[in-house]
């Protein structure tokens, strides 16, 4: 069946901001979809609110709208573009929900837009629990016994019938949000209560507990001719109870026989047919009883998912690309297998290696959050590795995680029996540390049976862990490292670094091991991912390393550039860096063979057809050096690019250079100039620039000394997180004493010697009431090109990654912009930057301070590129390869004159807003962790609001970041600190004029009443500090109060918006319960006055006018017109 000819234009919806459970994998799938559609000559209309994506690059679609994925906006776009069809299955749950909403609102019908990829009915059958259960039943399979509840009373009645444990699953949420396992009534009420709230249909499923069962997933594809293939089975090493996104998973299955596997396959096929996924992919999860083999179907996603990204990268079968072709009417047998070029896509990949995925968590960012892994996903990223066997792939995946203390270690003393007993107890509860605890317990002598009893992890995997432990101990004990033993260690997945530690080889140990290994001729070989276990020749150069005999690398003719990616997504280092790497690949590919190295399956950079060669490898010194050495033998290598993938590759620069690897662009010495505080201080003083003063302290006395030298207020933070206590803004000696004493208390477990901390506290001058600015720029050694100047909407003190910002800057004067330009030039020149640089500044009382400089691609490069219509990373890649900015102006990558620092009248305004994951994290007693933004970055993603002026752009950014956006009427709760009370009256008046009712705490209300502004008085809650969840809640009844406190009002649904600025002189955990309740209720809340004034403008803008939509292609055209008008 050939392609349908009646579809000429297709609208694709992306997945919006990166959030937990919906990450960069949808940039990968959306990008593949757009590429396929364009190849097929179809006009592509793309909507995604996330600017940090390849899919929103202008060349990916005919009309790209970086706009909120909200029904009213989508309708405007549909009305303007009139697409023939809508493809909603490649943008995660967000796109699927958006399509459902458009369908229900009758908009698809009104404009005659056909849904392709999945029908509304099929989506319903896949997602609605009751309908899905019927499908499972008809497929001759079993679901867990379950029932639907819409209220706590219904929940209780079900619990009586099934008994505990019970699993709670809200309907229509993504990444298992709000799911959990309840072992008793109290847990049940808590989880089900929250679940009913999260579900857009106020519906939860209560089902029998199947914790500890084996868990499997199948990725299936079906075409309109009813051909079905299973792309890949995935086995979860963690049994049922841990969300698959938080589990270590492997591909394919290891512990099922063919009969058992085929049963899953038969059921899977019957379900994809029953649900009616006519064209495209789906993911089905199964639980298998470890003693009886009873199979229970857990759930299905009628769309491309995170697991399909994993399956695609694991096998080389591009699910998203093929799903798109199927949606256009092709059948599987009509689509060629890219990798072999000779065989069709209507087959099932078979692999001859082992794939392991390990999740990456960020609990350290959320002090107080319960670290237990549950059925609700909490990881922020993942790394995947391929190896010749399980142990090799596990070892590679664990070191790909790139987080300290997250790989197996045999440092220190062998655990004694007491520790083993404790570890065996600890591993009952799954946490991110469980595998390390298992390994330590085994080192201390725990048996596989004991590990199994505690974890229910399949004995096969436990045996593999035991073997790794045994091999490590053999390495530790051996008199000499013989070639045989060293090879055994490599096959067990041990890195040179781990081996060096095992043999106590000291700081240079990794080099010693490598030299020994090389002297034995023991080098990794590179095998091809070919979908077919070598049955057919593969033309696609997609490689992984393993220790075996034959390498499959082919010689090259062109000079190569190696680009190091950013590894697993994490807070602070996410999709933005994949974006910049992909740009380098795209641009340098014109003149060089590009070689991409990365280990994150959720990315565009790891698509085998982006670069000339793809190495799916850990980003460690050992692995990167081996790739360089292997590639050098295949042809000329110009060098390695380390400055586009964030901190991970940057941190390898110096060692790679020392090992003889040419580093392109900014040199490691220059990187050090910018990163080393003292060296950077010298650069600044040479250029007569100011930096906030700083100091370090190990004791209270030193801290006081430092604070006095610097002058209060100061920002205090541990050099690593102590007991979950992060940064704090400290205003006086008393607060400082409290902070240091608490740090000493919490550090007791570590070694506090005579009142001195084990590691220093960092103390910086806190710039109060300052405006913070981010500048991204390019520098070629002579010329500076400002990529963008971004003014933060919140005042300084909020991490730049969490702050909302605007481009062009809205309040800066021409003189201030000139000073920023001169400062950036001086720093770039002073540090010797070649390529990208990001500088963070603050203006306080019109004095310019340099906060920090990063000689690399920053998080804001994609945003700045989209907002200014210039591909900064592409130009940067060329500059790193030795070209000049003048060359880039000439070749059209950069503007022929001027740059992104120039404000052109009439230019669109772009606002970046951050998206925070607080909803995901709960304290052990089930409360939301504190939302207050501070100097520690906690956002997972970003959106861009784009419109003709700042208020409209800001309003859009809020609509994109938060469901429903800003309210235009209703009740506003206000509680501001004393310092902010001066600024409040004018804002309050405006609120009243706009028709809002103000509700305030007594103190705030009193100030307002003196200005003649009416407000309703709300009872105050004395602060509940999260570290003491059992502390009683004290309510102070205020005079004239409405008789309720704000938390009650929020829970009653009385409040529509919150302005709650923290009391700066008290602990920053004040106001916690208010913020927690607001998150739980999804209310917009603002914690700074500057941001709230932006909110007011935005609300006015939305009320008075309406949003305007403009594609970025139109925007770019407009920019060029504005540019030429200046001539």
């Amino acid at each position, binding site marked *: 069946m050939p392609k349908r000819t009646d579809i000429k234009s297709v609208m694709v919806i992306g997945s919006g901001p990166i959030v937990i459970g919906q990450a960069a994998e949808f940039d990968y799938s959306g990008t593949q979809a757009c590429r396929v559609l364009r190849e097929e000559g179809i006009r592509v209309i793309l909507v995604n609110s996330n600017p940090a994506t390849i899919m929103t690059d202008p060349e990916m679609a005919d009309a790209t709208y970086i706009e909120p994925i909200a029904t009213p906006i989508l309708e405007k776009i549909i009305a303007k573009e009139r697409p023939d069809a809508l493809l909603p299955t490649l943008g995660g749950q967000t796109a699927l929900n958006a399509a459902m909403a458009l369908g229900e609102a009758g908009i698809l019908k009104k404009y005659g837009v056909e849904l392709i990829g999945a029908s509304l009915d099929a989506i319903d059958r896949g997602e609605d629990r009751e309908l899905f259960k019927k499908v499972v039943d008809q497929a001759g399979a079993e679901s867990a016994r379950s029932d639907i509840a819409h209220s706590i009373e219904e929940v209780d009645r079900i619990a009586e019938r099934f008994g505990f444990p019970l699993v709670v699953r809200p309907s229509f949420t993504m990444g298992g949000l709000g799911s959990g396992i309840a072992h008793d009534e109290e847990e049940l009420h808590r989880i089900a209560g929250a679940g009913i709230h999260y579900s857009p249909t106020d519906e939860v499923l209560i089902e029998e507990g199947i914790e500890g069962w084996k868990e499997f997933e199948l990725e299936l594809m079906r075409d309109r*001719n*009813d*051909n079905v*293939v*299973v792309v890949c089975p995935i086995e979860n090493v963690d049994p049922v109870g841990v969300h698959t996104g938080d589990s270590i998973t492997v591909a*394919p*299955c*290891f*512990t*099922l*026989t*063919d*009969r*058992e*596997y*085929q049963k899953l*396959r*038969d059921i899977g096929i019957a379900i994809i047919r029953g649900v009616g996924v006519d064209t495209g992919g789906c993911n089905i999860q199964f639980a298998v*009883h*470890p*003693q*009886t*083999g009873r199979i229970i179907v857990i759930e299905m996603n009628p769309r491309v998912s995170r697991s399909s990204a994993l399956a695609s990268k694991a096998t080389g079968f591009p699910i998203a690309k093929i799903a798109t072709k199927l949606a256009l009417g092709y*059948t*599987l*047998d009509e689509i060629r297998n890219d990798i072999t070029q*000779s*065989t*069709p896509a*209507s*087959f*099932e*990949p*078979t*692999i*001859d*290696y*082992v794939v392991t995925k390990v999740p990456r968590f960020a609990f350290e960012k959320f002090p107080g959050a319960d670290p237990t892994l549950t059925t609700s996903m909490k990881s922020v990223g993942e790394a995947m590795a391929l190896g*010749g*066997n*399980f142990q090799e792939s596990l070892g590679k995946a664990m070191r790909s995680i790139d987080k300290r203390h997250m790989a197996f270690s045999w440092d220190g003393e062998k655990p004694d029996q007491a520790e083993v007993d404790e570890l065996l107890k600890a591993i009952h509860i799954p946490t991110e540390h469980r595998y390390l605890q298992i390994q330590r317990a085994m080192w201390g002598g725990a048996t596989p049976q004991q590990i199994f009893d505690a974890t229910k992890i*399949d*004995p*096969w995997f436990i*045996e593999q862990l035991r*073997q790794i432990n045994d091999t490590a101990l053999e390495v530790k004990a051996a008199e000499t490292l013989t070639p045989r033993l060293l090879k055994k260690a490599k096959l067990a997945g041990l890195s040179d670094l781990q081996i060096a530690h095992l043999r106590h080889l000291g700081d240079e140990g990794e080099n010693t091991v490598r030299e020994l290994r090389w002297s034995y001729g023991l080098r990794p070989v590179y*095998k091809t991912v070919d979908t*077919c*276990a*070598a*049955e*057919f*020749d593969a033309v696609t150069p997609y490689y992984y390393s393993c220790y*075996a*005999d*034959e390498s*499959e690398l082919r010689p090259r003719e062109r000079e190569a550039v190696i680009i190091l990616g950013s590894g697993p997504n994490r807070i602070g280092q996410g999709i933005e860096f994949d974006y910049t790497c992909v740009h380098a690949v795209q641009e340098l590919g014109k003149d060089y063979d590009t070689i991409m190295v990365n280990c994150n399956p959720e990315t565009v950079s790891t698509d085998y057809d982006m670069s000339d060669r793809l190495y799916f490898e850990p980003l460690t010194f050992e692995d990167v050096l081996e790739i360089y050495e292997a590639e050098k033998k295949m042809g000329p290598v110009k060098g390695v690019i380390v400055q586009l993938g964030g901190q991970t590759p940057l941190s390898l620069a110096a060692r790679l250079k020392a090992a003889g690897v040419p580093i392109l662009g900014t040199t490691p010495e220059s990187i050090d100039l910018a990163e080393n505080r003292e060296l950077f201080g010298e650069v600044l003083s040479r250029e007569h620039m100011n930096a906030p003063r700083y100091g370090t302290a190990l004791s209270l006395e030193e801290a006081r000394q430092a604070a006095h030298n610097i002058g209060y207020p100061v920002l205090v933070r541990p050099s690593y997180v102590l007991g979950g206590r992060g940064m704090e803004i400290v205003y006086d000696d008393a607060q400082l004493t409290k902070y240091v004493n608490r740090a000493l208390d919490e550090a007791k477990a570590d070694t506090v010697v005579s009142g001195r901390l084990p590691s220093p506290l960092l103390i910086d001058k806190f710039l109060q009431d300052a405006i913070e600015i981010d500048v991204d720029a390019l520098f070629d050694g002579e010329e500076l090109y400002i990529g963008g100047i971004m003014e933060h909407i919140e005042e300084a003190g909020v991490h730049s990654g969490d702050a909302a910002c605007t481009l062009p800057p809205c309040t800066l004067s021409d003189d201030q912009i000139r000073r920023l330009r001169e400062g950036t030039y001086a720093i770039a020149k002073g540090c010797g930057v070649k390529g990208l640089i990001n500088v963070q500044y603050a203006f306080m009382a019109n004095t310019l301070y340099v906060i920090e400089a990063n000689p690399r691609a920053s998080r804001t490069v994609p945003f700045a590129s989209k907002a200014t219509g210039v591909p900064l990373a592409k130009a940067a890649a060329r500059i790193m390869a030795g070209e000049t900015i003048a060359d880039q102006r000439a070749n059209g990558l950069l503007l022929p004159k001027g740059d992104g620092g120039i404000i052109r009248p009439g230019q669109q305004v772009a606002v970046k807003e951050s998206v925070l994951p607080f909803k995901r994290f709960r304290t052990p007693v089930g409360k939301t962790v504190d939302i207050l933004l501070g100097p520690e970055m906690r956002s997972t993603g970003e959106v861009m609001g784009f419109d003709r002026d700042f208020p409209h752009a800001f309003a859009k950014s809020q609509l994109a970041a938060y469901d429903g956006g800003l309210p235009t009427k209703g009740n506003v709760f206000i509680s501001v600190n004393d310092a902010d009370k001066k600024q409040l009256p004018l804002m309050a008046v405006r609120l009243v004029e706009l028709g809002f009712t103000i509700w305030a705490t007594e103190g705030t209300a009193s100030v307002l009443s003196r200005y003649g502004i009416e407000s309703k008085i709300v009872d105050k809650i004395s602060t509940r500090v999260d570290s003491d969840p059992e502390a009683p809640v004290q309510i102070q009844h205020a005079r004239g109060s409405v008789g309720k406190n704000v938390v009650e009002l929020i829970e009653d649904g009385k409040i529509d918006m919150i302005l709650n600025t923290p009391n700066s002189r008290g602990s920053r955990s004040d106001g916690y319960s208010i913020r927690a309740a607001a998150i739980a209720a999804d209310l917009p809340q603002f914690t700074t006055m500057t941001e709230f004034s932006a909110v007011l403008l935005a609300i006015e803008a939305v009320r008075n006018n309406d949003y305007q939509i403009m594609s970025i292609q139109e925007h770019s055209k407009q920019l060029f017109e504005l540019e030429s008008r200046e001539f």
Partner: protein
Amino acid sequence: MNLSFSPEDAVLVLEDGQVYVGEPYGALGKTTGEIVFATGMTGYQETLTDPSYDRQIVVQTFPHIGDTGVNHEDPESKRIWVAGYVVREPSPVVSNWRADGSLDDDLKREGIVGISRIDTRKLVRHLRSAGVMRAGVFSGDELSDGKGGVKSVDELLDVVKATPQMQGLSLYDEVSTKEAYTVEPCGDFEGKKPLFTVAAIDLGIKGMTPHRMAERGCRVHVLPSTTTFEQIEALNPDGVFFSNGPGDPGEADAIVALLRQVLDAGHPFFGICFGNQILGRALGFGTYKLKFGHRGINQPVMDLTTGKVEVTAHNHGFAVDAPKGEPVAAPYENGKYGRVRVSHVDLNDDVVEGLQCLDIPAFSVQYHPEAAAGPHDAAYLFDRFVDLMKSSKEGK
């Protein structure tokens, strides 16, 4: 390549001189045969017990073998048939609720000589480009020179080269049952009167094949390869089936002659694998040896009658040489059997995977609809056979 080896090692020697040194797996000793690779990620127990692998050394591309141990339900015959076994990583433990033993023990008990921990991917890539060939695995006393040293590669190579070539080898008598036995209807038809009686000639039959027919209400008489036409007739069958099996179909004249008698008698006929090649020959087509064969459970086959694609289990080194496209007159005796068409093709390489006679009630497939191991997509073919018997019976 590490060419030095010690008496503790196992050594795989290919007829073209390639040598792989690994660890012994299964029994110690010597084995020779045609070396072939199988790409299934599951189903090693079914593979090992598939009689079609007689006299072949099987290389598993999947890196971990033996994880789920062995059980008494999954074997496709009563013994392991492979001549030798080549794997990357044997499992140190058995983990599956149905397991009742370890694969390693089974291999040892049945004297299957194997080798592990070699670069199996390198080996497969070599076989893919050079084609399958003869090989030998040597370990223990067969590797040792008896004086503390090891035999030379040349010495081992001579042993390999003395092994007969697969082409030209007739093996079905070697694997066929010596005694006839009956498989009674099962599943929904358990204990019921059989709907149909099938005479199944065992040329290396897998246990799942009669089971699939029994599930559909058939009583299946599994008969030795030496069965005569008269013995078949004596059973008064509703249909006749020829199974899969090892060896060169070009060397099966007696079986081809038997099938022609069956066709002449107008019995509904279904053939699988070797049975497909026999039908091809009976109709007058030739057979040929594939470079490296199809051995896997992920092969896309298109049913040309419906245009649908099925993912199928394959194990064949030979194929039928018949014209694809429009039906043609079967060449044998000037179209004595009427028109025939190629009903199925492998989409990977266009190899003929099925034949359908249009004027007589006979059809066959080259692949394995009984699966075991493999996907069940092609199970409908057993329904087709039942339908064929039904309409033939009703027509009578």
